[in-house]
């Protein structure tokens, strides 16, 4: 991801009110981490598993934070149990920032990633989780705000799947 796009993404999250982010580092979107760390607006929680990334974010949401959980696509599979038993069953508004590894537009796609990429949408649909695919920085702030409005309207997780320019 170009540095410009990374700041656009972080600014978009801030403009949408996201102020608590759990994460397990990954490659494609990783430039957002130092940007968020520099900004006191964000409270960051590094985690050891996406499973707890989702559960910690859920607790913070119940405590009044506007939360996101940032993870690689594989993290969706790791945290499926927590998405279902906590986020979905309790109805927690939560933004999932997912790097959509192995998708068609993933610039780093290879045999290593493609299988998890092709199973991503079926799993989200099985979980009944709304998602949007974001391939470039156009209207990024609006798209993040749309997703945040949707997560509050549904009181459920909403996923942004980042691919294309975000995976450069």
């Amino acid at each position, binding site marked *: 991801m170009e540095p410009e796009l990374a700041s656009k993404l972080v600014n978009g999250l801030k403009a949408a009110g996201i102020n608590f982010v759990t994460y397990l580092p990954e490659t494609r979107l990783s430039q957002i981490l130092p940007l968020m760390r520099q900004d006191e607006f964000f409270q960051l929680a590094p985690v050891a598993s996406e499973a707890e990334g989702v559960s910690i974010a859920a607790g913070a949401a119940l405590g009044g934070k506007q939360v996101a959980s940032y993870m690689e696509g594989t993290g969706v599979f790791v945290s499926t149990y927590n998405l279902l038993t906590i986020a979905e069953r309790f109805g927690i508004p939560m933004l999932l920032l997912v790097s959509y590894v192995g998708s068609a537009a993933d610039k780093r796609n290879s045999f290593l990633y493609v299988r998890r990429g092709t199973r991503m949408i079926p799993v989200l649909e099985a979980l009944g989780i709304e998602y949007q695919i974001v391939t470039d920085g156009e209207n990024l702030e609006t798209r993040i705000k749309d997703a945040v409005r949707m997560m509050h*309207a549904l009181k459920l997780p909403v996923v942004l799947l980042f691919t294309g320019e975000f995976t450069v």
Partner: protein
Amino acid sequence: MIRYECFEWMAPLIDDHLVVTSLSGQRVEWGHLSNREGNLLLGSMGNALAVGCGLAMALPHRRVVVLESDGSILLSLFNLPTVANLGPQNLSVFVFDNQIYSGTRISEPTATAGKTDLEIIARGAGIEDAVTVRDLETFKKAALPALTGSGLNFIVAKVEESRGHRKIQRTNMDLLENKYRFVRYIEKTEGKPIFLGRG
């Protein structure tokens, strides 16, 4: 020592604490003894510690009490290093370790019945204030500062398996209703909106 007697002693000490429980036995017994709006009865394994950690981070001036079991902690052991490093100073974790998966129809031993020591794991993860207690008096001594003081506490209470919860009338408050009650309580006591978006 059995879990229920520990709960009986704890319940009157809960003031504006937020209490997160894991699954069946805990959920049923605690819900029965303490019908407070600050209770979040999760009813699933492997989530209570992480949810409690998120709550503690979001509300650093409120004491958060997590009621866990050995089976549930073992399902999400990766929480321990994470919680230790995040280091919320308002989180008290109680693990009622009966060394058994006792929600199952036929109780099977957990790893703590074998060689595993949760207190040492917690210490190794970086939670310094971790203790193991084996009788009610010691439990009270360790639990009182954890409920009334500050810091990140981790108390492993070795208890006998008891099935008392199977005789208790279960609440029919489901998870959504529990969430609304809990969130409205936080809104009331913190004076800030949590649910966003207009009707």
